[in-house]
Structure formats: C-alpha cells, structure tokens
C-alpha cells in the first residue's frame, strides 16, 4: 500500500514537472526548432543578452508584476482592514464584489476591462495593463490578510490609542506586525499571478506593448525563439533557489507556530 502511494505521487509529479524539464532541455538544444535535438549548446543563454526585444518584454513583465503587486498590496491591506470593521451586510456585499475577478472567467474580465478602457478613450498600453493587473491582484491580497485580521485582539489597538498613540502609529506598531505574514504572502501571490498572466494582458495591452506571455503567444505560429526557453529556465531556477532559501532555511520555528494556530482555529 505504501509503495502504491509512493508510485502514485511520483507519477503525478512526473506529470506536473515533465513539461518543465522539457523546456529546460530545449534551452540547451542546438537546433532552432523544438522538433529535433541538434546537440547540446549553451549559446542561447548568451544570445539572450543581445536580444533587446525579449529583454524589453522581460522588463515590462517584471515592472508590471512589481508595481501591480505593490499597489494591490496597499489597496488590499487598507480594504481588508476596513472590511473587518464593516457591518455584516456591507462586508458580505463588498467581499462578494471582491471575489468577482477571482471567480469570473479571465476572458470575461479581460474583455470587460478592455471595453471600459476603450469607452474611456484610454490608449491601450502599459497603464491599462497595470490597472487591470492591480484589479485582479487585489482579491488575493485581501483574502490572505483577512484571516490574520480576524485573529487579532481588537483591544490591543484600543489600548494603544488609550495610551496616547496616534491611529497611524498604533496601526504600524500594533496591527501591522501581526498581519505582516498575510501581507507578504498576499504580495507574493499577487506578484506570481501578474507574472503568469496572459489572458487579461492579451485583451488590455494594445499594439506595441508586450510582456513575455504575449510575446510568446505571437511567436507560437512562427516558432518560439530558443532564447525564450533559456530565459524561462533562468527565471525558474532563480525562483526555485529563492523559494528554497526562504522556505526551508531560517524560520522553521515560525512555521511550527503557524501550524499550531491553524489547528487551534479548526
């Protein structure tokens, strides 16, 4: 039985990671087409550095992800705090609206935003894509902060006020440290979602502006440039190393505490 379970898990992981390994292998393929193997080479990693189009798309993608995650985190944090303070009916309504971009089909969200921007006569480009990304990122931030806020003891904030702290000071000294893990995971989630988004960007970007995703989509017909495989391999490996460092090195103590509080909640 134990062996069967092992085999099952291994099969699923092969399924999930086979395409990723394939892409990594392709990034070392000397042949330009993905259909055949032309021997091992590292040249795409070097020609990547000279490919200004890909580098521009990379810059757009990262800037978008960073800005949209940052702005969404700020708006989302304030929204989450005000949501917990609201009366039940208003909260349910606003949370319902918040969930729409997450539950709705991305194609519908993308189209609806495109129609809005065009009606407002905004030029489709970086700004419109940024606004769209912020919009679909906010729910992830709110949903990762709300549970933290619910666990807070409201008396500590009141106590800080009574002791003479200004509301803003009290917020940063009392509430913020407690919800910080939620804020961080919300930010990371938003960053990831923005980075991986294609559909909403596709509808709101307009000509002349490209992220990595939209660049890849236009290249599908002509064949993907091998440099693109090299770049994604680099991104993936970087993130893998970063996440391993963050997750498994320093704060195993922290995580044990988190697990406990999760148990208590249940």
């Amino acid at each position: 039985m134990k062996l069967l379970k092992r085999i099952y898990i291994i099969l699923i992981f092969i399924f999930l990671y086979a395409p990723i390994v394939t892409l990594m292998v392709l990034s070392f393929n000397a042949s330009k087409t993905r259909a055949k193997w032309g021997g091992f080479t590292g040249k795409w990693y070097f020609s990547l550095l000279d490919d200004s189009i890909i580098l521009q798309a990379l810059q757009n993608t990262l800037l978008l992800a960073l800005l949209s995650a940052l702005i969404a985190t700020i708006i989302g944090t304030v929204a989450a705090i005000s949501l917990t303070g609201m009366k039940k009916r208003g909260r349910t309504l606003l949370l319902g609206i918040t969930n729409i971009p997450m539950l709705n089909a991305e194609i519908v969200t993308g189209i609806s935003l495109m129609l809005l921007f065009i009606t407002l006569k905004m030029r489709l480009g970086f700004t419109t894509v940024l606004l769209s990304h912020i919009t679909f990122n906010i729910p992830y931030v709110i949903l990762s902060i709300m549970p933290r806020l619910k666990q807070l003891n409201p008396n500590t904030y009141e106590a800080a006020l009574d002791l003479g702290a200004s509301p803003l000071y009290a917020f940063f000294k009392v509430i913020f440290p407690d919800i910080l893990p939620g804020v961080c995971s919300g930010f990371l989630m938003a960053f990831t979602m923005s980075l991986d988004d294609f559909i909403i960007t596709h509808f709101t970007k307009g000509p002349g502006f490209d992220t990595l995703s939209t660049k890849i989509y236009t290249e599908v017909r002509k064949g993907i440039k091998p440099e693109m495989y090299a770049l994604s391999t680099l991104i993936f490996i970087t993130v893998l190393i970063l996440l391993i460092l963050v997750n498994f090195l320093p704060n195993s103590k922290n995580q044990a505490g988190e697990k406990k509080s999760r148990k208590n909640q249940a």
Partner: protein
Amino acid sequence: MNSKSKYLSTPYIFWAVSFILIPLCMIFYYGLTDKTGAFTLENISAMLTAEHSKALLLSLGLSLLSTMICLLLAYPLAMILNGMQVSQHSFIVFIFILPMWMNFLLRTLAWQTLLEKTGVINSVLSFLHLPALNIINTPSAIVLGMVYNFLPFMVLPIYNVLGKIDTNVVNAARDLGANGVQTFWKVILPLSLPGVISGITMVFVPALTTFVISNLLGGSKILLIGNVIEQEFTQASNWHLGSGLSIVLMLFIIVNMALSAIFDKDGEGSML
C-alpha cells in the same frame, strides 16, 4: 476602528466599482445592443446558431470531463499528502505553485513536444514496443492540457480541507465500529465537501472558458467557445456579438459560483 473604517473603505469601493462593476455593465451594454446602439437580443440568441452551440457544447463536454479527471486524480493525492507526516504544510503548497513560475504558455507548448508523432512520449513508447499515442491536435490533447494546468487548483483546496478535519472525529468513527470505507463515505468525504466544491469551481470555470489551451494543443481547427469569443474581439471585431456570447457564458459561471457559495459558506475550501 469602526468609525474610521467608513472612509478607509472609500478608495477600495471606488476601485471596485470602477474596475469590477462598471466593466461588467459594459459587457451587458454591448451584449444587449447592436452597432447602432439599439436594444437587441440577437447577440444572445446567436449562441443558438449551429456554429456557436457546437463550440459551447464541446467546451462544456471537455471542461466537465477534465474537471472529473482532476477530481479523481486530486482526491487520492490530497489524501496521501495529508497522511504523510510532512512537517511543513507550506512545502506541499510550494510544490504545486512552483510550476506557475514557468510561463503558462510555454508549459502548455511543451506538451506539443511531448505528444507529437515523433515526440518524447512516442519515442519512449516505441522503445518499449507499445502502440503510439496520437492525441496531439485532438480534443484529448485539450483535456490533457486542461488537467495539467488546473490540477493544482483541485489538489490545494481538498488538501487544505482534509488537514482541518479533526482526527478525533475519524478515530471516533473507527471506535464506533466503522470500517475504512464507511469512515471515508460517512465522515471524511462529507467533511471535505467544501474543498471539493471549491476545487470544482476553480477548475471548471477556466476550463470552460479557455481559448489558449485549445489553440496550442488542439491545432487551430477545434473551436471552443473561448476561441469564438476571443476571435470576435481580436479578429472579427464584432464586440457586440462577443459580449453577447460572454453574457451566456457568464450564466454558467454564475450557477457555478452560486453552488460554491451554498456549499462553502465560510470560505473553508480556499486555496491558501
């Protein structure tokens, strides 16, 4: 805090109205008018034409099938993961989120390389003297792409809910004489239902509305309803028709959301 929160929420309410509600109204406006701006239901009823209804039915069929496959694959997986004494909950989440850092389009394209007639999988199969797998550019390849892309959305909610089940409840069932199968059907499955429902929504909606996966793995011949709508906006530029079809699509999404709201009141089955 209460008095403050009123104006604290104002910026967000403003944002939500401008970028969530008004855009949705725009879709309804375009969907219910024609090019001259006059009210019409034609864009909605266009879904009934042979071409569009075929695309919708195919989308429904493929997305239901892939949702089922995801559920069947994910539930045992979530149970095994939950049974393993992994000290770090975040490690499991990590493994399923990690593939997202490789671009979604590239990951799906990689399946072309794997599935092609002379691709990796067929080379392995012919080496083992097994019959070749010719599913690229067929609906099967689309289902595979859907399952591949959306499986994590099914695994994580179920895994999270299973982790919250009090082991005492399971032990009590066993003490009272229930065997493994009974415990599963009477205790574990009902308690994990919020996760299952949330997983189904998370997989079904993107699968129903995808145009990318069908484009990349189905050749360009198989049209799903997502492809039809996308083409109305990007190629045919008939926004009214595209919006009308989107409204019909949203009906399915709303039913789906309502179901998940009924079964998962406390948001227990959330992904994180």
